[in-house]
C-alpha cells in the first residue's frame, strides 16, 4: 500500500510493510505482530497506542530488528532511509543501523543503567558499540556527550555521576541523551514516562517536544496511555491483538466523536471513552467487557469482533483489511468501510 497523497511531499524516513513477528514458544506460535504497515515522515511523531499484549512493544523491538528469543521476524520489510533492515546480520545492524539510523529508549531503561559505571563511561560504551565510519577520538566524544547532555536539560557534571546519584527524571533524560547522541533519524520510545511522577512526566514530555522541534527528528512513541499520546503524537496508530486497528491524525482521533472528524474504529472509540478526563467531570466511564484474544490461536475474522458492540456476521468470519477512509486516515473495520450511515459516535 503506498502512501503518496498530496500532503506528504517528502519521502518517508521509515517504511514498514506487512511486518510480522512471531514468538515460537513451547506452547505454540504467538503471533504477537501480525502484519503492520505504515510510513513515518521526517519530523513526524507517530504514537503507537494499545493495551497490554497488543504488540506495540514488539513493534518497537522489531523496528531495530532485535526480537528477543524465541521471537523472529517472519515476514515483512522495514526500510530506514532507504535501507532494508530485515534480513541484515547482527554485525551489520550494530554497525550500520542501530543507534546511527534508529535508536530506542526501552521501557524501564532508566532502571537498567549499570550502577558501577559513570554516565560518561556508559555513553562512551554506547558510542564504541555503534559508531559509523571513522572513529573519533576521546576529546571529540566528550564534546558530543556534553552537547547532548545539555540538550536534554542536564548539567554537564552529570557525566561524572553514577546512576544511583540521579533522580528518576534525570535518569530518563540521560537515557534519552544516549539515544540521541549518535544522531539517528528515528527514535523509538517505549513508555518513556510511565514510571515517572506526574510533574516529572510533564517535564520530560516538554523536553521531547522541544527536541522534536530543534532536531527535527522522527519519533515512534509507544504507550498505553491515550492522554500522553495526545500530547506528543502527530498521528496515532491504534493497535489491537497484533494488528493495526486505526491510524489517524491527532485531530481525527481526539476530535469530537460524532462529528465528521473523529475516531472510526469501535475500539478506539471505546478506548477514548474509558480514559478519564480531569478538567471536565465525567459521570460514566466506558469499559470493554472481555479480554484480548489469545495470540496463539486468534479468532477468525476481525480480532476485535468478540468484544465489539457493532459486530456483524461478516466481522466474525472475514478479517477486514486496512483501508484508507480519507486523507491518510486508515481503519481496519467493516462497519467503517461499508456503512454509509456510520456516524462516528
Amino acid at each position, binding site marked *: 500500500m503506498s502512501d503518496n497523497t498530496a500532503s506528504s511531499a517528502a519521502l518517508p524516513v521509515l517504511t514498514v510493510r506487512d511486518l510480522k513477528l512471531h514468538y515460537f514458544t513451547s506452547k505454540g506460535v504467538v503471533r504477537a505482530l501480525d502484519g503492520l504497515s505504515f510510513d513515518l515522515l521526517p519530523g513526524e511523531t507517530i504514537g503507537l497506542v494499545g493495551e497490554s499484549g497488543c504488540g506495540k512493544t514488539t513493534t518497537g523491538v522489531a523496528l531495530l530488528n532485535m526480537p528477543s528469543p524465541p521471537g523472529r521476524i517472519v515476514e515483512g520489510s522495514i526500510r530506514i532511509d532507504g535501507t532494508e533492515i530485515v534480513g541484515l546480520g547482527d554485525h551489520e545492524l550494530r554497525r550500520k543501523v542501530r543507534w546511527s539510523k534508529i535508536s530506542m529508549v526501552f521501557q524501564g531503561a532508566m532502571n537498567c543503567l549499570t550502577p558501577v559505571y559513570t554516565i560518561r563511561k556508559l555513553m562512551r560504551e554506547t558510542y564504541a558499540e555503534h559508531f559509523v565510519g571513522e572513529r573519533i577520538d576521546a576529546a571529540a566524544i566528550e564534546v558530543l556527550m556534553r552537547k547532548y547532555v545539555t540538550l536534554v536539560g542536564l548539567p554537564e557534571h552529570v557525566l561524572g555521576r553514577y546512576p544511583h546519584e540521579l533522580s528518576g527524571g534525570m535518569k530518563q533524560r540521560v537515557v534519552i541523551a544516549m539515544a540521541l547522541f549518535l544522531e539517528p533519524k528515528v527514535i523509538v520510545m517505549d513508555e518513556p514516562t510511565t514510571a515517572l511522577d506526574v510533574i516529572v512526566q*510533564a517535564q520530560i*514530555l516538554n523536553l521531547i517536544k522541544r527536541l522534536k*522541534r530543534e532536531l527535527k527528528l522522527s519519533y515512534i512513541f509507544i504507550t498505553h496511555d491515550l492522554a500522553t499520546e495526545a500530547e506528543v503524537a502527530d498521528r496515532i496508530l491504534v493497535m489491537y491483538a497484533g494488528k493495526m486497528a486505526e491510524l489517524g491524525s491527532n*485531530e481525527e482521533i481526539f476530535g469530537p466523536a460524532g462529528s465528521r472528524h473523529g475516531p472510526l474504529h469501535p475500539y478506539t472509540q471505546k478506548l477514548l471513552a474509558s480514559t*478519564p478526563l480531569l478538567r471536565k467531570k465525567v459521570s460514566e*466511564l466506558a469499559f470493554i467487557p472481555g479480554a484480548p484474544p489469545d495470540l496463539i490461536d486468534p479468532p477468525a475474522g476481525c480480532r476485535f469482533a468478540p468484544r465489539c458492540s457493532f459486530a456483524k456476521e461478516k466481522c466474525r468470519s472475514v478479517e477486514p483489511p486496512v483501508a484508507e477512509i480519507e486523507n491518510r486516515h486508515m481503519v481496519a473495520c467493516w462497519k467503517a468501510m461499508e456503512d454509509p450511515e456510520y456516524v462516528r459516535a
Partner: protein
Amino acid sequence: MCALKMSPAMPERPGYFGYDDSNVILELRLLRKEFHVHRGRTIVKAVDGVSFQLHRGEILGLVGESGCGKTTTGKLIMKLIEPSSGAIIVDGEDRTRLPREREIEYRRHVQMIFQDPYASMNPHFKVKDVLEEPLLIHKIGRTRSERMDMVAEVMEKVKMSPASEYMDRHPHMLSGGQRQRIATARTLILKPQIIVADEPVSMIDLSTRAEILHLMKSIQREMELSFLYITHDISTARFFTDRIAVMYLGRIVEIGSQDEVIDHPIHPYTKALIAAVCEPVPGRVGIERELQVKGEIPSAAAIPAGCRFHPRCPFAAKECEELPEPELEDIGGGHLHACRRWKEI
C-alpha cells in the same frame, strides 16, 4: 514481646475541622511515621503530621506523587506498620495501639486492596482458598460448606459468576481485572466498614479499569462502605472519589470536595499537579506545558524549613521559608489548604 505500653495522650484535634463530624468513621490526628535508615543517622519523615477525617459512606481520595507518604499512610491505617506519634481514631475510639485481641477485631473492619493484583495473592492458593482465608482467621462459618457458601456469595457480588467456574482456579489463570475483583471480594467477605485501596487499578488495562472502578463504587454505595482511595492518578480520582486530599512530602496540602479541589485549586502544588496532567484532547502537540514548579521533589530525609513546598514554588516569598509551616486553613465548604500567600497569588 508485647510490652504493655501506656498510649500517649491523644493529640488535640486541630481546630480547623468545622466539618460535620458526627458521621466520622475514621480520623487521623497528626499522624507521624519516621524511618531510621543508615543505622539511625538519617531520619526519613515519610508521614509528617497528617490529619483528616473520613466520613461514613464516603470515598476520600489521597492523591500525590511518589514519596509523598500516601502509601505509608495507608499502611499505618492498616496497622501494617506502627506510627511514631499521632492517633488513629475509628468510630470515636482511639485505636492507635491495640492489644492483640482488639487488633484482630480491628482488622475485621478495616481492609485493604493492594496495587498489584497478582502479587497480593499467594500463587499456590486457589481462588476459594484466597477467599476462605479471612473466614478461617476470624473463625467465621462453622463448617466448610457454610464458608464456601459465603465465598460463592461474595464472588457473585463482584460479578465473578458462576462462582463455581472460578473457584478452583489459581491467580495466574485469571486476567488482571479478574484478579482485582477477587482481591475486592476478599476485602468484602468480612463485611468491613473501611476499605483502603492502594492504587487498585494502576496495573490494569485501560479498557477494564472503568469496569473495576464502577464495580467498586456500586458495592461501596450499596454496602455504605467508607473508602480511602490512594492514587497518583488525579484523573481517576476525579471520576471515583467524593473528596480529594493532596499530599506532598508527608503532609496534606489541600483537601476538599473533588469539584472544589480540581476546578478551584488553591495551593500552588495542587495547581502544578493539575496543570501537569495530560488529557486526550487534540491540538496539544506543539505546545509545551507551563509547569508552575521548579526542580524536583526533595528527599523526605531533608524536608525544607518553613513551608515544605517553598523551594519549588514559583510564588514563594521570604516569609514562606522563615515562618513556621502553615497549618490547613478552612476557606469554607470543607475546602482546606496550607498556603500562606494564597490571597496574593
